[in-house]
């Protein structure tokens, strides 16, 4: 009897111990390369006791993964702010963010408000901002200094030495460069179709100029570094990291305007480690941690004061690419309506198939 009792107590004690151990959660983070560098993860784990599992992805894959599991498998995701409301309306994969658990004072107020507005459905907010940047042109200025705008990629002088992605930013960038305003037509399907058909014709005409459509960030850096490609449509951070190796290559804000994006924090619907997720958001938004992420990812964050601790060389590159007029000219992506991407998909398929 005594034996049974003592082993019962031992079991109970073990139960209590494991319960307290369960306080430390595993945060499964679905993010972009560079947004959760190892040094930041190590600091977070040491400070909070939570562990972090990082999965690197991109906008489309994030939605596809969360859709496949009905919003499970991850505790925190980082889609761009314009891609949240549409995906949520269509697939119901996120849960609203409890803003009381987030330290709003760590965010740049204008950016926080803009993201809240863009990711709001009813009165629920589905995203808060983390990292922002732009896409525009990365140009080898010694060999193709004349490339100043998206349409210049179709110029005969750079034939066969151009690359861009076959994705929606390319459609948007070309539309702006052709003097159209796709964002204004977002909610007018007929007008948007008209813009898309003009862009489609242009992209098919331009196809012979393209060396290849790039897929990943490393691929385009490789093409530019080897000199096989002299002008490309790509992210600002790619241009700046190449600039560190080769002073001729840099990011150029196109005359039609760079396209501005904000990557956010969003909570998958069936995520389990909410405490760890909120802890991670509040942790990485501290100015000194945000500076570490900027150093790793090459992009600035929405953290108030987070640009203070950033490497001077990166700041200099940023200022060279973005004079004040170019910053004012950034075209920030508005929320993508749910059915728009199907139209764009058909256009991209046809461009891909054209000879």
């Amino acid at each position, binding site marked *: 009897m005594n034996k049974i009792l003592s082993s019962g107590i031992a079991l109970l004690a073990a139960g209590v111990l494991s319960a307290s151990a369960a306080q430390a959660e595993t945060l499964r983070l679905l993010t972009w390369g560079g947004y959760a560098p190892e040094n930041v993860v190590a600091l977070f784990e040491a400070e909070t006791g939570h562990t972090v599992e990082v999965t690197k992805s991109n906008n489309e894959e994030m*939605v*596809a993964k969360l859709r496949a599991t009905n919003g499970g498998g991850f505790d925190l995701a980082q889609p761009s702010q314009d891609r949240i409301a549409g995906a949520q*309306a*269509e697939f119901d994969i996120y849960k609203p963010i409890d803003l009381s658990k987030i330290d709003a004072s760590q965010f740049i107020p204008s950016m926080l408000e803009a993201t809240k507005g863009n990711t709001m459905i009813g009165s629920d907010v589905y995203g808060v901002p983390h990292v922002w940047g732009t896409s525009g042109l990365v140009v080898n200025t010694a060999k193709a200094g004349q490339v100043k705008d998206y349409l210049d990629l179709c110029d005969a002088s750079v034939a066969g030495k151009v690359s861009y992605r076959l994705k929606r930013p390319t459609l948007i960038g070309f539309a702006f460069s052709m003097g159209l305003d796709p964002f204004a037509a977002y909610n007018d399907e007929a007008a948007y179709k008209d813009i898309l058909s003009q862009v489609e014709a242009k992209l098919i005409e331009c196809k012979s100029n393209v060396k290849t459509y790039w897929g990943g960030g490393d691929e385009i850096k490789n093409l530019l570094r*080897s000199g*096989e490609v002299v002008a490309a449509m790509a992210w600002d951070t790619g241009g700046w990291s190449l600039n560190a190796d080769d002073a001729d290559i840099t990011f150029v804000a196109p005359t039609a305007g760079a396209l501005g994006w904000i990557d956010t924090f969003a909570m998958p619907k069936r995520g389990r480690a909410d405490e760890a997720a909120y802890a991670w958001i509040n942790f990485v938004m501290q100015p000194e941690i945000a500076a570490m992420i900027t150093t790793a990812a090459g992009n600035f964050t929405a953290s108030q004061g987070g640009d203070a601790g950033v490497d001077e060389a990166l700041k200099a590159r940023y200022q060279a690419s973005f004079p004040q007029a170019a910053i004012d000219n950034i075209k920030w992506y508005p929320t993508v309506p749910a059915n728009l*991407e199907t139209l764009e998909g058909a256009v*991209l398929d046809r461009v891909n198939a054209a000879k």
Partner: protein
Amino acid sequence: MTQAQSRLGLYLLMTPLMLWLLLLIIVPHIGMFLVSISVKTGVRQYVTGLGNYMVFFTEPLYWNTFARTAFMSIAATFLTLVVGFPVAYYIAKLTRGRTKTTLFLMCLIPFWVSELVRTFGWMILLRETGIFSSFLQYIGVLSGPVEFLYNDAAIMIGLVYTSMLFMVVPLVTTLDSLDDSYIEAAYDLGGNGISILREIIIPHAMPGIVSGCIVVFMLSLGNYLTPILLGGKDSLWFTGLIYSQFITRFNWELGSAFGFLLLGLSSAIVWAGLKLSRQSLTDTVGR
């Protein structure tokens, strides 16, 4: 009693296979079929119908892509056979003992690294600043850099290289079983190299040729990495279309329909190939 026992043993032995087929093949396919027959009419609104299948037949782009994929796969299969047959013949008939094992192993070695790494290897060789281009400039054949990558020939090289082993192995097995005395007898009766190849060796190796061709054709048709990476902007492979429907367009309904069409059409092509070569599936794969 013993009969009941042996039946129980049979069931137990069958269980892993049946579970495999049911859980990993049949159930997912039923799920995918249900997705493929739901047509989207609005946000979170679907009706049952064959609309997704109709898209394939009404939009020439998808139909053309499939035709191109099938044609290129058939060409790749034929090229693999042409390259693989002499290799298999040499290994099976002209070598003995340790040399034979060594040569066989050498066919296997490229498969010790992943397909992705092998494909990147070809990209390093073929790209504009790559090894071929630089070497040809060095020996003076070319005056400037030339891009060998991102065209159909590059896709073809990649496909043939990737599927070589799957052609050589069945060929070696069937050629091994051909008694050398038949070939000697044919020579004694006045045959020459070409007539012996036509009358003795190829008819004997036919089951191996057909099973190798089926495997290589299916692998090429279902290949994703090689055409996308080596083909670049002109790749346009049917599996690439399926991938983009699922992942970048969020259009699972159309992607599933494409998946079923690929399954059906590729089975039809294999069936037609078997009829043309007058072989049956039991003769070739079932050996």
